[in-house]
């Protein structure tokens, strides 16, 4: 999660926003190609909240990097506006009877921005690089046995187990980008990456900006913009001022408390859509008395999620007691906890946990956790739990989480798509992110089963059973799904906010 992790995959969000011309290559008609028209090129300046750590798509985990790389690289397949996986570099794919062999057909005539051809060998090189060098996305290839090139336009992937979410794993975000071997081996990929996407990196001024120019060799509809310049503005007030003053034409770094009012106006245009992120409270089950399900349920009953959401997100979120958001195909409506202080007290009594003092760890990296913690503390006080809030910087926070040095923490998981990403690593007893020590044999079995279940209906049902148990056990106490809010100048047309927070400028035009 985080400014850090940016994965996607496919929870189908019923978004009405269509991103035109992103999958195939047909032309998009834009009104008025004349000198006063919106399609007359120009360079769009976008303010993002921080600087990418590096531009090697396989090595970075920073969201700031992916904001830029989204416009530079392609993946085999990619999520559309509804987060369904659609053709990109691959035009089609077939699956063997036993679900263990996937054959991808590549688009012909694709080249990298430097003119060299992109063929099956490049796909094999890219995926094998991630696997053999154990790079960030390596875990997405857990079931992949081999990746081979049958011929220049055919890639064959063999698996050790059926993997229904393979497409999301291989193309959910630009961390799975198809890279150019020569560019990687020269080391230039860190600051001057070469991709096959709609734009290409033309300049990088450390600490200040990254300049992209249109890639005239792009296989899809040619971008209308001549280029995009990303500048790094950490302070949201300053970013908004830049947008209002016309120095930048797009930003996602808006002061959250001003977004509701900004959405009402039309200059700048500010839009928000529900995201696939979720934020939660976790109690350390390895510590007494949080191993007792009654104590965890007591906390769940003591919370008023509406109040927490209002304070932390200024209304820019939807309360949810499970992880997967409402618009997703895998949404499961289940909300057993309504605030009930009597019931909470009774459960605590039952557990013999009166006069409890709880250490709650939050991080200044995500200010919403700091704000929410104060509301949570006030609400728990009413049922006799004294909360001691510990605010740490993110590096220290991660350290404490890994060591299990906490009673409770609040954080979120960002950019999830497939239900496996929502639940497995967090709640399976052997899950890599099960820092809070949850163990339930039924949940383990269901999550293992659903992971390889190719029947969609059966898979959905398995995830619903697992979700119900997870919520009943209060493994995580789910709080809300936040919205993604972004703003742009009146001069910008053709931009749509995406639920997966991918920033795509390929269809954008800038009026003079």
């Amino acid at each position, binding site marked *: 999660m985080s400014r850090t992790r940016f994965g996607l995959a496919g929870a189908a969000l019923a978004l009405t926003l269509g991103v035109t011309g992103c999958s195939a290559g047909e032309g998009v008609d834009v009104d008025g190609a004349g000198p006063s028209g919106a399609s007359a090129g120009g360079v769009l300046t976008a303010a993002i909240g921080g600087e990418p750590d*590096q531009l090697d798509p396989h090595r970075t*985990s920073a969201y700031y990097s992916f904001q830029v790389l989204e416009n530079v690289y392609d993946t085999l397949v990619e999520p559309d506006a509804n987060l369904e996986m659609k053709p990109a570099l691959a035009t089609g794919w077939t699956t063997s009877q036993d679900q263990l062999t996937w054959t991808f057909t590549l688009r012909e005539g694709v080249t990298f921005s430097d003119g060299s051809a992109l063929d099956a060998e490049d796909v094999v090189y890219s995926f094998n690089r991630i696997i053999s060098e154990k790079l960030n996305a390596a875990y997405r290839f857990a079931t992949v046995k081999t990746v081979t090139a049958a011929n220049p336009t055919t890639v064959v992937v063999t698996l050790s187990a059926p993997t229904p979410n393979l497409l999301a794993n291989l193309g959910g975000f630009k961390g799975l980008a198809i890279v150019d071997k020569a560019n990687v081996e020269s080391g230039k990929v*860190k600051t001057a990456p070469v991709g096959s996407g709609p734009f290409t990196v033309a300049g990088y001024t450390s600490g200040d900006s990254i300049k992209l120019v249109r890639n005239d060799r792009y296989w899809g509809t040619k971008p209308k913009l001549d280029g995009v310049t990303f500048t790094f503005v950490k302070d949201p007030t300053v970013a908004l001022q830049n947008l209002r003053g016309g120095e930048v034409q797009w930003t996602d770094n808006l002061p959250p408390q001003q977004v509701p009012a900004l959405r009402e106006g039309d200059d700048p245009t500010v839009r928000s859509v529900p995201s696939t992120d979720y934020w939660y409270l976790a109690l350390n089950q390895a510590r007494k008395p949080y191993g007792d399900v009654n104590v965890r349920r007591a906390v769940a009953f003591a919370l008023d999620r509406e109040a927490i959401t209002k304070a932390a997100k200024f209304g820019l979120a939807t309360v949810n007691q499970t992880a997967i958001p409402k618009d997703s195909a895998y949404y499961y409506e289940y909300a057993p906890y309504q605030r009930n202080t009597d019931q909470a007290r009774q459960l605590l009594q039952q557990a013999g946990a009166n006069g409890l003092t709880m250490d709650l760890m939050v991080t200044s*990296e995500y200010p919403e956790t700091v704000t929410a913690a104060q509301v949570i503390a006030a609400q728990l006080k009413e049922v006799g739990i004294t909360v001691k809030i510990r605010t740490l910087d993110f*590096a*220290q926070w991660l350290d404490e989480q890994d060591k299990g040095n906490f009673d409770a923490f609040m954080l979120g998981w960002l950019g999830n798509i497939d239900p496996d990403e929502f639940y497995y690593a967090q709640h399976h007893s052997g899950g890599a992110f099960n820092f809070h020590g949850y163990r339930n044999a039924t949940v383990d079995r269901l999550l293992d089963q659903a992971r390889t279940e190719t029947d969609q209906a059966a898979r959905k049902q398995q995830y619903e059973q697992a979700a119900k148990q997870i919520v009943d056990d209060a493994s995580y106490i789910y709080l809300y799904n936040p919205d993604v809010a972004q703003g742009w100048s009146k001069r910008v047309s053709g931009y749509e906010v995406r639920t997966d927070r991918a920033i795509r400028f390929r269809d954008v035009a800038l009026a003079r």
Partner: protein
Amino acid sequence: MGRFVIRRLLQSGVVLLGVTLVVFLLLQLVPGDPVRVALGTRFDPQTYEALRARAGLDRPLVVQYLSYVGNALTGDLGVSFRSGRPVTSIVLERLPATLSLAVTAVVFATLVAFPLGVLSALRSGSPLDHAARVFSQFGVSVPDFWMGIMFILLFAGVLGWLPPSGYVALTDDPLGWASHVVLPAVTVGLVTASILTRFIRSAVLEVLSEDYVRTAEAKGLRTRVVVLRHVLRNALIPVVTVVAVQLASLLGGVIVIEVLFAWPGVGRLTYDAVQARDYPVLQGAVLLVAALFLLINLLVDVLYARLDPRITVR
């Protein structure tokens, strides 16, 4: 003089070595794991081990330190954990932005503080003196980030005279640079000016009460001559030190202001490096700042000898 400079440079080398050791040891005490931060929350233990080994963090501390110092002697300050780029070039890239901001801020501060401090001392107790003291109290006590935001809202927002943030290299476009440097330099400069005003005022007041000033006045010299030849010349010596110290500390980067104004200087680099626990970059930035500090101190000592013939450097 030449021998003095050489000896001081050698001493500086020892100090810098000490700086590397202290910074290295301090970083070991700071909680937080750079590899863990680089991977974010969604990481895989195998990926973690692989990255740790690539960064050389699995070696014993003594080996890590000695290899760092060994390489540093050849100008190689290692490779950033975050970006994989050489630290020497990362740090040097950021230097022009910080230098140009710091120098502009100090020039601005001196231009404001010098007349204000001197006049306020010469007319001690007058309305001007009171105004100057209120100004310097204000500058010292108002947080600079708040002042910065107010300036942005006023000059970039309401009036629309200046860009709210960003940076243009002086060598690329001097006018563009100037329009971008004004707000951050004034924000930083006001704080510095406040400190300098107070200091200059008290330095001048002190000299004014000296016997030789009374003597000069008694022998009938005009006030102008007394002030210029006797008061200012003598008051200048401690002032030079303070201006130099202010400059040196600004060269370390004004972290908050650089972050606020999206100014790509050493301060912002340091801030990001701390957040990411990017030890090599942090060490490089601290080393650079320490070196600049030593250099400025050396220059001040040499300057002293010029300003005051009683001081000689040996």
